[in-house]
């Protein structure tokens, strides 16, 4: 299990190599990564991600532990960047390793849903006209319902 909140970029290939720890029970690995995409007006210059240092690591560890227990994971990884990110930059990644594919998929979706609306990060979209804080959407909140 590894959790990292960092300014710098990460290499998904390297992370997945380290991640695959050689346990011969692992049959399925799911990974997700989020990328800074353009906004609807196609005017995004960059994104700024603010965090609540101290709480981020704690909150993420919590959800990772919940996932590991619930889906009997052999390994789990969360990397989340903060600070200034350009269009196309990697924002974060999640990876889960299980015996069967269903557990790997479910736990990765669970982690994403919780990171999205329970880990203390806030995204700001900067355009040439100024900036705006990304609004949370009801969909993200109701996504948590399925895990209860």
């Amino acid at each position: 299990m590894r959790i990292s909140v960092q300014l710098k970029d990460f290499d998904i290939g390297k992370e997945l190599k380290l991640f695959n720890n050689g346990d011969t029970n692992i049959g399925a690995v799911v990974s997700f990564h989020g990328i800074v995409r353009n906004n609807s007006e196609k005017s995004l210059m960059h994104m700024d991600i603010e965090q609540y240092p101290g709480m981020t690591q704690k909150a993420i560890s919590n959800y990772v532990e919940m996932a590991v227990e619930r889906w009997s994971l052999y390994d789990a990884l969360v990397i989340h960047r903060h600070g200034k990110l350009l269009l196309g930059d990697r924002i974060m990644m999640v990876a889960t390793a299980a015996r069967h594919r269903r557990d790997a998929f479910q736990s990765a979706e669970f982690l994403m849903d919780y990171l999205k609306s329970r880990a203390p990060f806030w995204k700001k979209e900067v355009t040439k006209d100024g900036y705006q804080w990304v609004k949370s959407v009801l969909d993200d909140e109701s996504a948590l319902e399925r895990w209860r």
Partner: protein
Amino acid sequence: MIKVLYFAWVRERIGVPYEIVETQSGTVMELVEELKQKEPRYEIAFSDLSAIKVAINQELCEFDTKLNGAIEIAFFPPMTGG
């Protein structure tokens, strides 16, 4: 004495990332009311509480949660990570 932190647009409206507050408030809500009395910027920041989340000692809680000698309390908009 409690450390009060603000993030994202809550921080921008309050104007500081954190401050130390001397308070006798029993719950989060009482502390919010106390802050709103102080200055208009608090009144503006806390005008719509349905758009604000709270954490005590770095764990999410509700507005009716008791402060109970908390060391740290934070106010911020709904998270948008991931």
